[in-house]
Every structure is written in C-alpha cells, then in structure tokens.
C-alpha cells in the first residue's frame, strides 16, 4: 500500500525507484544508462541524507519520538542508543536471532535490519508498548504464567513475534506458532514454554507434562 508512496522526508522510496528506473534500466541500451544515471542524480539531489545527522520522527507506541541520527543508524540503535527504549535487544545485529523484533504496522520485523529513517511514517510497537495502564497484555501474562522466560534477553523478541502472530491469526495451531517463532532464538531453552504461552494466549488450555515423583515411594 505505502510501498510505492514516497515516505515522509524521502524523495523516492526504494521500490518506487526500482519501478521507475530499475526495470527500464534493465532493458535500456547503453546510451540510455547515462540518462538514467542523470535522472537518479536529479532525484537524489533534491534531498541527500547524511553523512551527518538528520532529524527524524518515529511513531513509537503511539507517541512521536524525535531524534537526530545518521542515516546509517538502524531502528534498533535508534531505540536502544538514541532513546531509552531498551526492551528490544541487540543479540546478533544481523537478522538471525529475533531479539530485536518490533511491530511495524502490526507486522513483526527485525529492527536491527531496518534503518531508522526508513521506519518513519509507520506505527512502531515495541515491547514497552504492549501493557496498557500497567496491565500486561494476554501474551505477556501467558509468558509469565507459563515461565516462558529465563534470563529474559530473548523474551521481548518472542513476545513481539507471538503478539504479531495473534494479531493476524488469533487461533493459531502449534505448527503456526513454530512458524511465527522460527526467526527467534533462545539460549536458555525456553522454547517448550514459549509454545505453551503462545497457545494459552490464544485461549488454548495447556498444562505442563512435568511430574514430580517422590523418590522414597519408588520401588
């Protein structure tokens, strides 16, 4: 929807550029390449970002967040280092672990792999934005009840992935939970409980399979 619309402050979005120039460049004769380059230069000349800082406004948890950051600053860095929203964690910084997951217009994304300037004009939800008036969201509550967290460093990412899933699909199957969390890693080993928490948040009644047996009563 908004993909081809130039973002607030950006003269031309990446997709719009590809649409305009990319396809035509692919079929262009050599002579036309020069023309394309000139068009590109013109488009960029209208507004060049960086290398210094630029003012940006992010819409985070329903509030505007005004920052001065270099264009190369990621959304994750903007949240963690340029403001105090440290709920999203930096673990791999290359889109493999999911600890930095936030919602962008309700879609879970890796905030380590999105530039802050690109995130303008979207509704960003971080883990800090889920609880309302001090009341945990269903997903958060289920994570606490099922003990779907240990050291807690991956937890915000899992909470956001599950939240994103339930927004799209309020009654997922276990397979769909696996799919939704396939981009999140945990080192303490909370996975079985994350599954239970996700299903519980979706209204499925799940109980632990663990048993405690008295040694004294063993034969």
């Amino acid at each position, binding site marked *: 929807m908004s993909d081809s619309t130039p973002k607030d402050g950006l003269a031309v979005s990446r997709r719009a550029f590809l649409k305009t120039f990319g396809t035509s460049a692919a079929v262009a004769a050599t002579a036309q390449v020069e023309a394309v380059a000139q068009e590109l230069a013109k488009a960029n000349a209208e507004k060049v970002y960086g290398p210094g800082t630029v003012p940006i406004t992010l819409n985070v948890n329903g509030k505007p967040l005004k920052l001065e950051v270099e264009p190369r600053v990621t959304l994750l860095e903007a949240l963690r280092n340029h403001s105090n929203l440290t709920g999203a964690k930096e673990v791999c910084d290359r889109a*493999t672990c999911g600890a930095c997951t936030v919602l962008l217009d309700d879609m879970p994304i890796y905030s380590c792999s999105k530039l802050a300037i690109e995130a303008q004009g979207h509704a960003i939800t971080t883990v800090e934005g889920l609880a309302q008036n001090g009341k945990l969201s269903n997903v958060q509550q289920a994570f606490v009840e099922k*003990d779907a967290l240990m050291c807690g460093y991956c937890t915000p990412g899992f909470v956001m992935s599950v939240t994103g899933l339930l927004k799209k699909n309020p009654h997922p199957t276990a397979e769909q939970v696996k799919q939704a969390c396939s981009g999140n*890693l945990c080192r303490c080993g909370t996975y079985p409980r994350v*599954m239970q928490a996700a299903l519980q948040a979706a209204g499925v009644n799940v109980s632990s399979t663990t048993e405690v047996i008295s040694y004294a009563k*063993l034969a």
Partner: protein
Amino acid sequence: MPSWPEKRTLIGSRVKRIDGPAKVTGAAKYPSDVQPEGWLYGMILRSKWPKARVTKIDLEKALKVPGIKAAVTARDGERTVRYYGEELAAVAGTTKQACLDALRVIEVEAKPLPFVVREEDAKEESSPRVWDDTPNLSKPGLNEKGDVDKAFGECATVVEGFYTTPVQLHHPLETHGNTVSWTDEGLTAWSSTQGISSVRDGFAGNLKLQHSQVRVISEYMGGGFGSKFGQGVEGSLAARLSHDAKAPVRIMLTRFDEALAVGNRPSSFQKIKLGATADGKLHAFELESYGTAGIGAGGSSEGGGGGAGFPAPYIYRVPNTRVRQSSVNVNAGSARAFRAPGHPTSSYGMESIMDELAVKMGVDPVELRLKNDPSEVRRKEYQLGAERFGWKEKYKKPGSSPGPIKTGVGCAGATWGGGGGGTQAEAQINPDGSIEIRCGTQDLGTGCRTLIAVIAAELLGLQPEQITVRIGDTQFPPSGGSGGSTTTASVSPAIYDVCTKALQELQTQTGIADARGANWTAACKKLGVNPLTVSGRWQQGLSSSGAGGVQFAEVEVDTETGFVKVKKITCIQDGGLIVNKLTAESQVNGGIIMGIGYALYEERIMDRLSGVVLNPNFETYKLPALADMPEFDVVLLDMPERGVIGIGEPVTIPTASAVANAVANALGVRVSSLPITPQRVLDALGKKAESVPAAAAKPQA
C-alpha cells in the same frame, strides 16, 4: 541443626517468577541497557592475525574522528597476539557510528607469524608453536589403577572406539560486556556477569583499586553458562576509556566477537577400549585423549576446570583403568568453564562405548547399565525412565528399523556435585510491613530472585509478591559466583537463616508470639519508627550435593538426507528438595535443549589456512530453535530429606550421549563425532555400504 519446615505450602509449589513482568515488558534493565548520564559507546579493535608480533598501534587518527572521546591500546609496547580476535585497542565515542569509523582508521603495524588452529595439526612436533617455549601437546597426565593389560585378557568381550567432540561456544544471548563509570570516587560497573564479587575483585586487581572502591551491579543479565565470571579484557578497557573520557562507557561485545575471545568448551579426541567379563561386568578400561582449550585454559574455572581434561570412565567404576589425557594448544581463544565442564564430553565417549559393548554382547543397553552403574538412585531412575519411555517396546536391534526414515532409541546417565556454602544475607522489616531481603548473589535466569522470595514467604507466612528481593550488587552481603550449580544450595540456607532470625527478633521485640501470616502487619506496626534489620548466613543441614539423572532419547534419521530429528526425550532427574517446580522444570528443559545443540548442531569451525573462526554468527553456528523441539517427558525426583541441591548442570550432560546412541541404534552404524550433522550421517552410512564387500578383508583393518 536447622531443618526445612515439615509442612510446606510455597516451597515445592509452582511459583511464577517475581521478575517475570519486568522481563516481558522491557522494564528489566540489563547491563547492556543501563544509560548513566553522559554514557559513551565503546568498541574494540581485534587482531586480524591468528598470530603476529604487533610493533605499533597508532590511535591518533581515531582520536580525531568526530564524536570520539577516548582511545586506548589493550597493552603498552610490543606484544605477540596469539589468536584471531585478540584485543588490540578500544575507542569510546558519542555514537556507535563514530566508534565504527574510529576503529577503521587505527593503524596497526604487525609482523604475521606462523600459526596452527587444528588439533590434529597442532599436536605434530613440526607445527608452529603457540607458545615458543612449550610444545603444543602437553605431556599426558597418566592415571592408572589395577593391571589393565592383564585385565583385558580376562574379558569375554572387548570393544574399541574413537570419538570426537567439537569446540562448543557459550553464546549467551546478552554478549559479554559492562557499562563502567570510573571517577575519582571509585568505579561502578554494570556487568553482565554470573559472579559480581569475582568481577569486583577482577576490576580492583586489574586497575589497582581497593575492593571498597569498586561496586559491581548486575540486576539482570542475559545468560552466561560458565563464561561470565570475570570483568574480561572488555571490562578493563571500558574502565580505562571511562577514566580517560571522564564519562561512563558501555562496551558490549558484538556477536562476532563472542565467537572469538570469551570462552568455549574444549574439544576432545577420545580413543577408548572397554572390556567386560562373561557376566557382563565392566572389567577393563583404557582411554587416551587430547583436546584443545585454545591458547590455554582460561582463568575462569568456577564450577570446573578450564582445561581439556574430563572425568573417565565417567559414572562407571571399572577395577582396571588406564587414562592418559593431554591438551593441545592452538591459536584460538581460551576455553572457559561451560555448563558441567568436562561432563558432556566425557559422557559422550563413555556412553557410546557402553552401547558398543552392549551391542557386541547382545544385551539390552539399559540392562548393561543396571548391571554396572554404581549409583542406586540412577539405577532406579533407569527403571522408572525405561517404563515411562516404553524402552522395552521401542528398543530394536540396531539398524533394523525399516524404510528410509529410521527410528532409534538410546539412553545415558549423568552425575554432578553441586553443593553450596558461604552466602550471607540481610533482611529489613519495615514498620509498614514491607520486607526487603538483600543478598549479593545474581540471577542468571535460573530463578534465583524468585527462589529467595519463595523461601522468605514460606517462613514468614507471606506471599512471594510481598517480598522485595534485592540481589546483584556488591554492596549487599556477599554470596559466591553462580557456577557449578551451587547458587540454590548456597543461597537457600542463608535466606532460611536470616528469615528465621528476623522472625524471632520481630516476635521478641513486639511480644507477639507468632508474627507470621495474619499477624504480620500488626507485629511490624509495633516496631515503632525504626525498621528491624537482621543478618543471616548459610547453615549446615539445609542443602547437600550430588545429583544424578538419566535420559532416554528417541530419534528419526532420514537416511537419504542425513537429517536427524529428536522425537522425544524422557528425563528423570533427582535434585533434593525442589524449591520452585516451575523454574526447576525450565532449567531441565533448558539443559536438554542445550544438549540437543551439542548433539546435532554446534561446532566452532576454524579455517586452517587463514586461522579465522569460519562461523562467528547464528546463520552458520546453529542453535536449536523452537521447531527442533521434541516431546519432553520430565520427572523430578523429590528427595526433600537431602535439602536443596542445584540441577542446572546435570540436566545437560546425558542428552547428547542419549541422542547419539539413538542415532546409532537407528542406523546400525555409529556417527562417532559430534555434532551429528547430515553430512556425518551420510558419511557413516557410506562407510557401512563399503564395509559389506570389504568384510572379507577385515583382518587388515
């Protein structure tokens, strides 16, 4: 002698983590999250050479990068670096981007030197030495009992095997690091650590400060698994940068750095020979092994050694044994203690050869263990586990599973010491009825904070939410590092003691005979203006050491792709008095999952030509994920009469061994190296195919 209450309502129940809400809302502030006024970002420049003589490091251009406030070298003067990733210099600046730019313009003059990164190469006398004055391969430690050679002659069955295990990386999700503020008043460090006291001592020693001048805070931390007992080179660098820049500095390592320089589990190459007499009793054992702990054993060895040795013949008692173990240095980062140091490595070799023996003798592997395992607890666990798992129905002759996707089962046992001591704690009871417990321990994600609340609430007749637990600060009464599964056994008795004394004192001062529960608020009110503060310490009789455990694994192996899927793990674990079932179960799950990683996925891979770590990220160093989870059947054996015992480590030990045995059972041929990758499965199957026509030529083999 003190004892736990006979009738327990909270202890042994399922109590939600009291810090759960903070962790699911992002309110929990980790050392990587804290932002003291004016804080700077810090980054480290690392050696790109596996070995080099560094003659000059020029920081001048780095200091001129806009935003950069300080730059330091890791050491003064000429030096030799011995692995790819060793620290050279560090910078601090107002943004990460400034630091990235500054690292790029630091000029390093160095002369590359010959190096060696693979164990098989390094042990050859002709290879370059890691340390000039010492051979790479250490002189083997010899441990001999009985007459081994004669004993093998007395055996009815003898099996031999060669097993290897990889260098495994800790990869806690919060990387190593600290936020440090060093001023004339002293040093405050927010450290991602499992030992605030050892980090304080480390800072003090490294920076020539008094212990009293250093305060270490670790309110939350994102995992350690044995690798986070010291402030690290990164901590000392952050401190020096803070001193120079006159501002707090945060250095958290990158994921890339994490694979190079902050510890690992040593590899192993194990040649094993095991013999049993006709009645199935183990009679003779011989092991020759080597492995690498990188450039040398790491200093952080709480909870176990940092070297490449391991216990053998592990949990079994064999009358005649000969064990020869050595370590081999390579140009790679040092080993550090890693969850149950030595044990998973040892277990894999020993339990593999046990299954080989069972197969050759034609006996059921569980039966062989029941006959030879010296622990009565574990024997009972095998019986209970076999029943729950359906072992008798599931265990088939190796390789007899039909079709291209083969199923198999395996089992293995474990032991761990644990135990505890030394912890102190204090309680402050306020006139308004609120209570605060302070203890200088730390919560690695094990649920230690909640455990304190559970015990205090039990003894005072309150609810866990009513207890304010303050931990993770060296200003609180001391406790030890969280290693060796000692935290629960160290902390619980001190909390018992301080709460028992506080209650007595409250009752004496107020004249209320029983101040617990319903009487609590009224009693506290009678205190008047001043709160009551009481100290307590660890007491004998409330905790003990020694935990066993057995696990059973069921796997599916696709013989066309080599892919292994763990279908089910049954775990029977003893752990004394279980304080909080909910968090104890999480620990068990976590241990099993880490064991699955060791079994199937995890291996640091070094490039012999360039000397670099080839998989310093999560795309190529694989961790288990949610979709890899098997069905779990976990049983905790309650033994309250033994007091509190830690279980974090024993639960990770037998998983890989059980999985490996299950894979061997499925295939009818053993993959004798961890991790059991698809390639290794296919290789093993290839060997099997060859061995059919080669059977005639067997005597030559």
